[in-house]
């Protein structure tokens, strides 16, 4: 069931390339704006780089989140799923997975290039990759939640940011703590373990909340 939905999502994403290419472009543009804004001092950039990468990742995932359920809601797909009383959970999981594959994974793959551009050291670089790898799935799950809550709202846009950015903050805190510890040569497995714990907690609970949010929105 999940695979069927996932295939459908990926086919749809393949047809609408703007949906996942725009957030990626946005990610790169934000990253190029930062050195222009703070000044091209290499030392300063090296210190700030992990934080910059994380903030850019947050914003671009947020950008992708807005359209997650919009089309399916307008086409009546979600109404059908809710009415048929099955497959809703699989649909939610497939949405989150497709969202991660289309925005999270490309960000992780792009991060080596970005790290090179900003001159990140190798220790901090490994930590940055690991936190992105563990953190972006969590970002995807939470943005699915935000999109589901605001699905039938009249004014989505800025509201979505107000809802999910606060939920992103704990993730951001632990991710940047891990990177900072790594850049000082300290062990950071504790922070990574907390990231994994948050990811599994979200995986267990958020799909339930998303499913009930979808039900409320179509009723």
């Amino acid at each position: 069931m999940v695979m069927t939905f996932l295939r459908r999502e990926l086919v749809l994403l393949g047809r609408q390339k703007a949906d996942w290419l725009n957030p990626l472009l946005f990610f790169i543009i934000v990253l190029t704006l930062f050195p222009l804004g703070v000044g091209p001092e290499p030392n300063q950039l090296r210190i700030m780089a992990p934080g910059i990468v994380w903030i850019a990742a947050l914003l671009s995932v947020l950008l992708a989140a807005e359209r997650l359920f919009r089309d399916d809601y307008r086409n009546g797909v979600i109404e059908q799923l809710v009415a048929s009383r099955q497959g809703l959970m699989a649909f939610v999981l497939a949405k989150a997975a497709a969202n991660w594959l289309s925005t999270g994974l490309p960000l992780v793959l792009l991060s080596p290039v970005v790290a090179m551009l900003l001159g990140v050291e190798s220790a901090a670089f490994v930590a940055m990759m690991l936190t992105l790898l563990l953190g972006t799935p969590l970002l995807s799950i939470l943005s699915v939640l935000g999109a589901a809550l605001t699905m039938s709202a009249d004014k989505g846009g800025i509201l979505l940011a107000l809802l999910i950015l606060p939920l992103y903050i704990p993730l951001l805190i632990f991710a940047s703590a891990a990177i900072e510890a790594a850049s000082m040569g300290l062990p950071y497995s504790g922070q990574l373990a907390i990231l994994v714990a948050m990811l599994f907690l979200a995986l267990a609970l958020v799909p339930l909340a998303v499913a009930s949010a979808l039900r409320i929105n179509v009723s």
Partner: protein
Amino acid sequence: MFKWLHPLAKPETLYHFCGRLFPWLMLSAVSILLFGNIWGLVFAPPDYQQFDTVRIIYIHVPAALLSMSTYTMMAIAAFIALVWQVKVAQWSVLAIAPIGAVFTAISLLTGMAWGKPMWGTWWEWDARLTSQLILLFLYLGVIALYGAFSDRQTGGKVASLLALIGIVNVPIIHFSVEWWNTLHQGASITKFDSPSVHPSMLWPLLISLLGFYLLMLALVCLRLRTAILEHEQHRPWVRATLGGH
């Protein structure tokens, strides 16, 4: 207890119940709050480390505790609204949210005014301050989410769901001081077996806390009454209660 609680799920009964409760709550809240604060401001001794700035504790700590317990209350109401589909529970979520937001704002602002002379900075990005800020955003998110729906029924349900999800933040705030060892000092009155505050300061603090609690309950009563009237204005009982003047 359920036999006693169950009639309160009926809007009309709850309206009259809150109406009877409200004057007593409001009067006792104002007098107890003023009593506790004046005791704290005038009669309590200054701290040997923090001098007179410690007097901010009589509003800062109650507001901070209230911001969390108000949220817990809102989340419980949201849970009841979503699971048992109780209408008044859903309205009370929206009645509570702005009150909690104001208490959170008070705890942040008084914390800033306390942090400046003691830590030398208005704002410090430590765990407790940050998670308290998140709590404020959650309150605002609940209010904004409700406002974004033209259908009030759907809006109320979705806002309840968000309130329920946000409850994960409350334990994070509570334990943040122990998990991260940062500038903010640990909890001072929740450890009842060995309070780290001297009785001469603990009493005015507890009295102020009681005053804040009563004020919160009084305002929730008032706002809930307004919400009940607004949602039920086409029912005959509202016309009978308000129209017969």
